[in-house]
């Protein structure tokens, strides 16, 4: 009797939890509906009619494509830099003991713990002081700084599970450091890196606050959206872009989820 009562879910809790999840998801679903609306002057609900016309209009908009292209390039390069720096940091912090280890973890987390506006304005004023003009690379610099942390978190968690005896065994069997890295360490951390890389990509692809300070006149996709939000020019195009952005960010998240889930089971069962 007791245990039955323990495991029964109170209906109030069920309703509150379901309502909370609905609160999180209904606004996103609404984006999907609005992408098809025929109304182009206001946010009228319910939409007076449904059409696919705006997808074609958006497809033929060069500014959207340019912004998308810039975002993809920035996100790819930033993810690459973050993968390199994050893995190096994670390996150093988890495989060795040295003075100032905690400080390094703190330093990696700082760009994401401080409000984005602080990172943005400090980078901008540093560019001003050093007289560096805004360019593709100033955006990448800002993005890579806060992308390091997601790669680092994923890699550190995996390094902790990677038992040191595997590396010692590889060395005992005559592999040098590079061979051990290539054949033992890399296969063990690769899914964690892939997951961290995807999250970093999603983070960079979506970032707007730091970007407004480091982009100058260039438009990444989020900057383009922000412009449309502040000064709406063609609402239906914004609706379509918003829907596509939701879909594009969902895919890496789902993939990263399945990768880390399966990966953790494999490393867990290996020991």
């Amino acid at each position, binding site marked *: 009797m*007791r245990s039955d009562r*323990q495991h029964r*879910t*109170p209906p109030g*809790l*069920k309703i509150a*939890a379901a309502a909370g*999840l609905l*609160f999180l*998801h209904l*606004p*996103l679903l609404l*984006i999907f509906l609005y992408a098809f609306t025929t109304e182009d002057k*206001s946010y*009228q*609900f*319910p939409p007076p009619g449904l059409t696919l016309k705006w997808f074609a209009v958006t497809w033929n908009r060069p500014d959207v494509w340019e912004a998308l292209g810039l975002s993809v390039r920035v996100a790819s390069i930033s993810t690459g*830099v973050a993968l390199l720096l*994050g893995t*190096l940091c994670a*390996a*150093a912090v988890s495989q060795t003991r040295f003075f100032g280890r905690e400080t390094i973890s703190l*330093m*990696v987390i700082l*760009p994401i*713990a*401080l*409000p984005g*506006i*602080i990172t943005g*304005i*400090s*980078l901008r*004023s*540093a560019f001003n*002081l050093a007289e560096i003009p805004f360019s593709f690379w100033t955006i990448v610099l800002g993005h890579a*700084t806060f992308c*390091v942390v997601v790669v680092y978190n994923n890699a550190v968690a995996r390094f902790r599970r990677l038992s040191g005896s595997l590396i010692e065994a590889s060395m005992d*069997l*005559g592999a*040098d*450091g590079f*061979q051990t890295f290539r*054949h*033992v360490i890399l296969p063990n951390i690769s899914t964690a890196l892939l997951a961290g890389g995807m999250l970093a990509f*999603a983070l960079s692809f979506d970032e*707007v*606050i730091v970007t407004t300070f480091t982009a100058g006149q260039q438009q990444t996709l*989020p900057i383009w*959206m922000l412009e449309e*939000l*502040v000064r709406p020019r063609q609402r239906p195009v*914004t609706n379509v872009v*918003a829907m596509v*952005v*939701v879909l594009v*960010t*969902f895919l890496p*998240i789902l993939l990263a*989820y399945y990768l880390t889930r399966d990966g953790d089971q494999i490393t867990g069962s290996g020991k």
Partner: protein
Amino acid sequence: MTAATVTAGAILPGRGGAAGSLSDAFWRHPGLLLFLMLTPPLIWLGVVYLGSLFALLMQSFFAVDEFSGMVVREFTLKTYGELLRPSNLDIILRTVVMAGLVTIASAIIAFPIAYFAARHARGRWKAVFYLGVMLPLWSSYLVKVYAWKLILAKEGILTWVFERLHLTFLIDGWLALPVVGGNSLSVSPTGTFLVFVYVWLPFMILPVQAALERVPGNLLEASADLGASPRQTFAHVLLPLALPGVIAGSIFTFSLTLGDYIVPQIIGTSHLFIGMAVYAHQGTAGNIPLAAAFTVVPVVIMGIYLWLARRAGAFNAL
């Protein structure tokens, strides 16, 4: 991968050459490898990032010359004096109150979701709840704000729903209230508040869920065996144990609200928040020192907040 290596020979021959001697050097001097591994991230984060932060902090001790509008590079506390003007204190107070309210509301909404996901959801439902929180967390921030612009617009879905229920007078009555109201929901402080809660809610759910998952089930059974009602168990056993998770979540919701300037700009009144003030001062006004002084405010507030949170043991719940 490993299988292929094994068939090729259990013990690999020494490779010699440059790579081999480099590898040997790393083995003999582990400090060298550590140095090489840490140098790139340290240059990037330590020199470029922290350097920029300190440069910004320094500039808050400069001031703008009132006549020329140029930044005078001399140490002064004049800018901090400006920060303490009533109009600027208003901005700080408004932002802190908003951050506090958003944090409390997120905690209340997040708790049942986290509790259900941690202690009642099993198997497939657990995955549904996990992804159900992760997808909104990671989906585009601007798209989420945009969705609320659609919802809160005068001709939007919320007005439509209230009209259908013949409850329009509720919205009108609320909007007529002095502090929280406005012309329409999308230009009222209520709108700003709703969007903040929506955007930061997942950041509250995850740590609370992690904390609840760590509460041992036998403690709750013991409490029930000793005659506590579910309500008493919740108040005296579960809530104190989950509190570090709530505090950990509140670090995110509080800090993120303090620094945000896009939500109040798109959905809200013309009253400034800290982030908007920073943006305005560094941009059109060109008053970098005052902007820098403004950024010090959330840093100091978060410093105090983190210190208190640490004393409450919230970091173990992260």
